[in-house]
């Protein structure tokens, strides 16, 4: 079997097997719609609500991407400050760890109360808060572990700190940065959905999920989960694609 065929065939076989088992388990236990959904139940829901799925997916996606973008910008800035200054690192680290330890589900009501009615802003804020931590940590570690010789080859020529950052520190940190970004993508989706579900405001896939929950419509709820997974996979592979372009050098050919 050649490489491409295996890369397509292997996941297909596993997905079909899992869906098949699920379908069989629901049928075998004779579970009705309102107890458990089976994969074949999902298709009618997609057909019935396809326009809603498109609109809600878009609402979830753009707010997640904006939150993630904020997390990248702010996380990189915090990481830079922590990477370059030991004082800032020692001062900020416990605060960041403590902040990250707070379950974000408890922050959602607070944010929703603080900015009443600003639904898009609130959702973006939670997506950002939950996903900037790995970015900040990875950038700060990447910068603070830069070997002094790397700095010296440019510094001995009279290069400024900014030039050293731009030409050496930044590109050298990119592999760690993309590693963190892959984690942050998933986290950002969790953030968006937390806001949409815990503080319902009629937007995003979380809202569709909530309608399913209220009417005990398991097929709709599962259909939303699959839509969320699809969005997550899409965004994840966008990051992988960017990584190939900007940090492809870090990938060694096998063997």
């Amino acid at each position: 079997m050649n490489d491409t065929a295996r890369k397509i065939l292997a996941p297909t076989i596993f997905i079909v097997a899992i869906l098949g088992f699920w379908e069989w388990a629901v049928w075998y236990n004779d579970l009705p719609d309102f107890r458990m959904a089976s994969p074949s139940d999902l298709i009618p829901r997609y057909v019935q609500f396809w326009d809603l799925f498109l609109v809600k997916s878009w609402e979830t996606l753009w707010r997640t991407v904006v939150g993630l973008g904020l997390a990248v910008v702010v996380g990189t800035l915090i990481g830079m400050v922590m990477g370059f200054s030991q004082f800032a690192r020692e001062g900020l680290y416990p605060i960041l760890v403590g902040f990250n330890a707070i379950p974000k589900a408890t922050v959602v009501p607070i944010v929703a109360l603080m900015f009443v009615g600003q639904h898009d802003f609130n959702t973006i804020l939670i997506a950002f808060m939950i996903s900037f931590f790995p970015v900040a940590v990875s950038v700060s570690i990447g910068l603070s572990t830069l070997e002094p010789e790397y700095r010296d080859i440019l510094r001995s020529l009279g290069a400024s700190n900014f030039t050293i950052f731009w030409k050496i520190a930044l590109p050298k940190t990119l592999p760690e940065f993309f590693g963190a970004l892959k984690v942050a993508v998933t986290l950002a989706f969790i953030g968006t959905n937390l806001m949409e579900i815990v503080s319902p405001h009629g937007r995003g896939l979380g809202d569709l999920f909530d309608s399913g929950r209220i009417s005990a419509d398991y097929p709709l709820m599962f259909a939303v989960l699959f839509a969320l997974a699809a969005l997550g996979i899409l965004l994840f592979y966008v990051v992988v694609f960017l990584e190939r372009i900007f940090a492809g050098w870090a990938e060694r050919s096998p063997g």
Partner: protein
Amino acid sequence: MQTDPSHYMIELREVSHAYKTKAGPLPVLDNLSIKIPENSFCAVVGPSGCGKSTLTRLVSGLMKPNEGQVWLHNKLVTSPRPTVGMAFQNPVLLEWRTILQNILLPLEIVKSPMSRAEAVERAHHLLDLVGLTGFAEKRPSELSGGMRQRASLCRSIIHKPDVLILDEPFGALDAFTREDLWCTMHDLREEEPFTCLLITHDLRESVFLADQVVVMSGRPAHAQYVLDVDIPGKRTLDDLYAPKAVEMLATLRHQIQVAQGRTEADAPAAPPPKPARSQPVPGAMQ
């Protein structure tokens, strides 16, 4: 203290330096004086931890000495200077650039009269000289340790520095690769002369490459001994096995032992140093 300009390409005048540590100041250099004329090659040897790397950071302007002066090309060194090239034991090539882009890196910092095309041509020429023909478009990860070090040497002289500072660049290489690179150094100097300060642990390397070998004392270090290496003409590795070179190596070995405190300075070395050719630094050997 003298303030008149130096007549040497590199001159250290009574340089003393101490690092701040928790246990108080740690003196590393004590009254160190070294003079290196234009286009000559000076090797510095000494026991480990004697401040050899501190010396490179002082000469390159990355650090300022507590006391004393460092002169480079008739100017007092106060900050890094673009007329300096540096190479370290770690070749520090940037993994995300090709070998050619790595070699051209200094020209992105230093203003040079060379056009881009001239610079690329020069880079290819240097690659030919060090035996890396055809590797310009490769990534550093595709090169062996010795080849990376060759590329690093090309980068250190791409901008035609008048001073080259080498901090144990051959230290991590195997013996044969190392000897190969020694010969490459001679080829490079023949092609375009530069003044060179080499820090090394290898006495054979110092005798083979240098015009003058400075032995540093233990910490805090001063110049304990200076050996003039007068092997005329183009050197070959065979010269290292000639009686003259063997004698010089014995002298250096003896001096290192003195620096390590294992032997008294006036105890006879075998064979004894010949003062006619090698002059101890005045006041350095008490």
